[in-house]
């Protein structure tokens, strides 16, 4: 089962690389295609000759170019779920106890949210999410993936699993908000990429993702406090991981408050989102890898 988990992981990484490449290829290819089409019609070509190309423009350029990244992103999610399930069977516990497992689970959460937002007509956010999933999987590939025995403090069942699962899901949603913020900066007010929606749409996607992620982040922190109360004898001890999750929570709280103000939507609130996601990454990787604390066992 461990071998299956690792094989599925590598498969997901390969699919993710292809998905990221094809998603961007469509964006880059489409303006070229439009230019070629206009040159063809301007050069005396007939409308009948151009008709198939125009049909392609409506449905996607070319049709498979739109569908392929989406198919691949579904394949990524499926492979990651298989990897995590096989890992759970191999270890006998939920695969949420080490940094490799967290990172793979986070990649799966991001891939799942990609599908959610695709259904919410925010598919363009894929352009930033596909490379982020790929980046997470590359990071996971560099982390030790061997199965280690569970530390005694982590053998406490459901609350700990719920805490980590909710945190990973929250971080997945917040990754979508970060991706939307990046695309907002890319689009800016001048709408650099004609195929993509305008900046306002990315502002909405970013806000929508925080609307999902923020309550989950709150629930995750509360569950962590409840678990810490049993395992460590106190619900809060200013451990670096706890503190960094508070910093993240405050950052997104500030985002909500600022976003409601006139003049704070768009680039300014996207800036806050990028900063807040920096805290997510710091909580996720920085604290586990570089700061010692009670969560240090999560570093391996």
């Amino acid at each position, binding site marked *: 089962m461990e071998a299956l988990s690792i094989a599925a992981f590598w498969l997901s990484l390969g699919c993710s690389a292809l998905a990221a490449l094809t998603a961007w290829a469509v964006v880059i290819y489409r303006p070229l295609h439009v230019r070629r089409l206009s040159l063809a019609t301007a050069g005396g070509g007939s409308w009948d000759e151009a008709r198939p190309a125009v049909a392609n423009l409506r449905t996607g350029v070319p049709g498979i170019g739109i569908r392929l990244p989406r198919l691949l992103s579904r394949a990524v999610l499926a492979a990651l779920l298989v990897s995590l399930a096989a890992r759970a069977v191999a270890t006998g516990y939920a695969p949420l106890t080490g940094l490799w497992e967290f990172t793979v689970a986070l990649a799966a959460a991001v891939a799942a949210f990609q599908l959610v937002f695709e259904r919410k007509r925010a598919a363009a956010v894929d352009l930033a999410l596909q490379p982020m999933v790929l980046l997470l999987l590359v990071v996971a590939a560099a982390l030790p993936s061997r199965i*280690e*025995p*569970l*530390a*005694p*403090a*982590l*053998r*406490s069942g459901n609350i*700990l699993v719920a805490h980590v699962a909710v945190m990973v899901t929250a971080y997945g949603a917040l990754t979508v908000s970060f991706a939307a913020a990046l695309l907002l900066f890319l689009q800016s007010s001048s709408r650099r990429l004609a195929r993509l929606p305008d900046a306002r749409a990315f502002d*909405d996607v970013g*806000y*929508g993702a925080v*609307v999902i992620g*923020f*309550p989950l982040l*709150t*629930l995750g922190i*509360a569950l962590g*406090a*409840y*678990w810490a*109360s*049993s*395992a460590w*004898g*106190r*619900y*809060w001890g*200013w451990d*670096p991981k706890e*503190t*960094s999750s*508070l*910093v993240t929570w*405050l*950052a997104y*709280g*500030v985002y909500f*408050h*600022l976003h*409601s*103000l006139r003049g704070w939507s768009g680039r300014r609130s996207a800036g806050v989102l990028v900063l807040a996601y920096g*805290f997510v990454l710091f909580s996720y990787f920085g*604290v586990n890898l570089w*700061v010692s604390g009670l969560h240090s066992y999560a570093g391996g």
Partner: protein
Amino acid sequence: MATMQTALHTPALVRIRFVAAEGVRVLANVRLAAAVGAGLALLSLAGILVPQLPEAASANSGATADWLDGQRRSIGPVADWLYRLGFYDIFHSAWFVAGLAILALSIAACTARRLAPTWRNVAHPVKAVPAAFLDASRPGVVCGAAVAPAALEQALRRRRFRVEAWKADGSVWFFADRYPWAQLATFVSHAALVLLMVGALLTHFGGFTSRLFIAEGADQPVFPIDHRPGMNIQLASATARFDPAGRPLDYRSQLAITENGSEVKTCTVTASQPCYYGGYRIRQAFYYPFGADLQVRDLRDGRIAYRDSLALTDSRLAPRLIVSDTTGGVVLDRTLALSGSVLGFDGALLSVPGLSGPLWVGLATGRGDTPELALFESGATPGGLRLSMPLHTAAMAGGLRFEFADLETSPTANADALPAARTDGTPAVPVLQLTGANVSQTSDGGPVTLWLSGIGASAPVSLREGESASVGDFEYTFVRLKPFVGIEVKKDRGEALIWVGSALLVIGLCLTLWVPRRRLWARLGSDGLRITGQAPRLANLRRELESLAGESELAGLSSPKNGSQLGHN
């Protein structure tokens, strides 16, 4: 009455009311709340990046000074500035406490300003709107087709709207509200934040914590002796499981709780599963395997002069020496307790088979901080055995091969109360040292050995579990290795508030952000249906209104001649 009115309008009172109103206005400002949140986030970040004074050191000025010296060595005089500014204890600093206080006041002010209008909006909404409002509002949907009032009402009710309809000016007017109470949820989440702060204050100032360090089989009082009631905790057994590589798998302690002499509860605690009794949470804070159950018998009268379990909580380096002869046969393999000191080096006398006299073995630090083992024959004449070996090396001398095989950190403890022979009239300081033991009991340094020094013998006395040795008038028995467990007994008066606050915070946020509240106004007249509404930012209200109008139209379509004529403002 006139006097009272005059008093209420004196300039001083007017000024106070003005200042109070201004204060509330400033505190309720969203920008201020965001700024305070950002400030608290930055201070918290500093709390991660700047080393924080350990809790144990903060209660002791000497320990604080030592810790601060360490910081000075790292970053120089900046350490003093950071200390003065409170950055080494940021979460108890004036900055952080002030930030939390302003945040609490800001929440209170914001609630005070917004609660009444929000409540009015929920309980007494504006139901009848002017026709101009409906005509001008965006998003607004116009449906020119015939829509029956009943069909629109049913469509709204299917969408869980509370609907009111009335006739006026030849039209049927509708007011529909869905989940209006969700607007109040923001107050729940904000109140929850204040509740969490109060809970934290109660934890800080009203909590009780007792930390016990109990040997297996022993018991300890939870409260000071003069405290009522007398609650004791007995550690019936303590077990630890390790995997073959020595990594811990499980720690488990069986406890018996007695109150005023009667057993009131028995329970098992693990590393993550506490036990509860009488509002107290009893948990296993740590497991300490290096305890020795020791017995001393006075040989003069045969009585047991001493019996106790001692935790060996200090540590000392213990080298492992392997001596072999020319054929390769091992003549000695021992981890040594270095109990004496010569020329500033820790050392011990050692008898080696094949050598005429004892060897003095000392541990020194060589070049590059490499540990070196020095050996020389005690009282040796020139030409006697003299060796110096870095760790993991070997050397030949006197026809024997000496190997400095390993260096372990071995647990030690002073045992002042241990009866000991006074050989030279000076008080002995008995010291216990364990070698060959590690947490997981997987050491390859030989079996666990307890070394006793300072009891009157010329060299440390080594005992295995169950062995006895006589020195002077006493017989010392190492009964067995005995684990100790750190037990924490805690009552946290703020914890209940923390859980209530956490639950309210999560519920408040979910209701505020996830409940699809809507408020609609519609007019159904001879010119068709005109409908508009209010919704949170992310809702696609136009699409919802179109869907609603389309459904009402289909349901109420009485005449096929009225085709769909949806439009919008």
